């Protein structure tokens, strides 16, 4: 047990320069169309960053590159000082501490809410452990605690496929929480949520920043205004503007892209 904890600690990310994610000169093209065009993005350790941009700006492709789903044609992506994400597989990246919430909520519909969290839980994930070990008390407490946080304690034995849309979003966020990643990539967390749920989500994400670094992609402007201190605007695969919400909103380039000239 001690050795396992030590191992997890040893895997910690080198963030001595204050940055946790370095996306540098990344280009991805699909049949000649450049989804990402020489993109540069730096995320500070513990920061909560919002990314906005019109459809086709390359937001999801950027997430795909960071999580290893898509390989860039050019450029480098570093997690901390040392880990080159372009050389790692999806599960290695997840193990290194990057969690992802998809645009379309993806949970395990045939598993119960509790089992969903069990599967996502930060633990040894090789086959022999899965085959022979059951949850220890500390892990059970973590799951119960997260069930409280995401407000699904009464639904814990319900099949996840039966949850309402907002609850599914929360479950997926809960799955990210138990995974305990250093960096959370969250794609459109409040899509389809009620006003109240949106507020709760904003609160949750703000409380996560500091301990974790959070990157949120969202269209919902009010939501971004309520959580963001730094916003990056993507356009045609490049960073168009970066700064506080106010700066970005007054940037003439951004205004042009969003409203047309």
């Amino acid at each position: 047990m001690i050795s396992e904890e030590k191992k997890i600690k040893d895997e910690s990310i080198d963030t001595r320069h204050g940055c946790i994610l370095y996306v540098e000169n990344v280009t991805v093209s699909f049949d000649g169309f450049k989804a990402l065009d020489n993109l540069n993005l730096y995320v500070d350790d513990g920061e909560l960053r919002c990314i906005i941009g019109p459809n086709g700006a390359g937001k999801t492709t950027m997430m795909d590159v960071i999580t290893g789903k898509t390989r860039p044609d050019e450029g480098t992506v570093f997690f901390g000082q040392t880990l080159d994400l372009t050389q790692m597989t999806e599960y290695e990246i997840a193990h290194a501490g990057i969690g992802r919430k998809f645009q379309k909520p993806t949970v395990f519909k045939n598993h119960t809410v509790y089992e969903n969290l069990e599967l996502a839980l930060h633990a040894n994930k090789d086959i022999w452990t899965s085959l022979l070990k059951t949850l220890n008390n500390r892990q059970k407490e973590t799951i119960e605690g997260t069930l409280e946080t995401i407000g699904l304690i009464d639904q814990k034995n319900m099949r996840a496929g039966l949850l309402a849309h907002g609850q599914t979003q929360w479950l997926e966020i809960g799955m990210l929480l138990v995974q305990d990643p250093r960096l959370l990539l969250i794609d459109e967390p409040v899509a389809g949520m009620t006003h109240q749920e949106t507020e709760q989500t904003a609160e949750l994400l703000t409380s996560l920043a500091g301990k974790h670094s959070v990157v949120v992609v969202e269209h919902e402007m009010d939501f971004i205004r309520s959580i963001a201190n730094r916003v990056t605007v993507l356009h045609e695969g490049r960073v168009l503007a970066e700064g506080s919400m106010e700066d970005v909103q007054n940037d003439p380039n951004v205004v042009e892209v969003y409203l047309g000239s």
Partner: protein
Amino acid sequence: MIKQIISLHSFRGWFFIFGLFFAAIILLPVFNIFVPEDSLLHVPDYMFPLLGKYLCYAIVALAVDLIWGYTGILSLGHGVFFAMGGYAMGMYLMRSIGKEGVYKSDLPDFMVFLDWKELPWYWYGFDYFPFALLIIFLVPGLFAFIFGYFAFRSRIKGVYFAIITQAMTYALMLLFFRNDTGFGGNNGLTDFKRILGYSLQDPSTKMCLFMMTVFLLFLSYVISRYIVKSKLGRVLTAIRDVENRVMFSGYNTLHYKLFIWTFSAFLCGLAGALYVPQVGIINPSEMQPANSIEMAIWVAVGGRGTLGGALLGAGVVNVAKSWFTVAAPDYWLYFLGILFIVVTLFLPKGIIGISDRLKKNKDREILND
């Protein structure tokens, strides 16, 4: 560990399983030996190899269900693993014929017929039962591991994977059909005399083989149940439903798929090895593409993703097959096809799904009251 195993079933579940188990290994032999032959309750000798054959198919059904029903990987090539286990056992049985073959030679009859002077190197060792046992487990497992490694690493899925497994079984069937391959060509291996010194014609040997099969089916079932009830089983069903999410949660899905694929092949090899001494022959027709498809149909008919369903399906389809091939052999394939279509359209959860549906209707009635 023991606690975990006990908790695999409710008390009633275990009661039912042990009931079946003891009925098979105690009651059937008792009804065979102590009930007079003219009585209706008498279990005739020929029943044992026949039931044994069905139970071997039941082990195959478990194997197919683990990989298809639980993990969502449709294999249409499991006949290969079955045949491999069968051939390994067959080679041992051929060697233990000794000089009692038609040509009174130390070599198997088909080799004498082909005018071969000595035993090919890959037949060495099959004089010894433990060696054959090792091969029975090693060869299907190893073959599956290598095949699976390349297929899963390249992320081949769904229909493409199913087609490749069909091609695999077809290719190996053609290979085994050739006389030069050294496994008896299209006649395969047959005319076995004895196993471990006991005559295969002897009713008590047949009964023993049947009891061994019951025991190994029981063991296979408990292990399979343990797997699907463990966290590993939940990871497998998660891979079936959304593999991407599993990867992004930090699981190396390649390892998981490879594990269950290899284990599944291993079970099939075991089933093949039990099948051959009871049926008395193994030949390349076991590797016909249609055979492997039939295995998938057993599971679909019984109910995918439930081990009980797989066992039930193997039983129902094979009993029907035995009946049809006697009563109306020309119509069997039509019947199988229609059965498959009906199940796919109206019973997506198979026969075992019917009871769930009835239960739901009952719940609804109760609610309406």
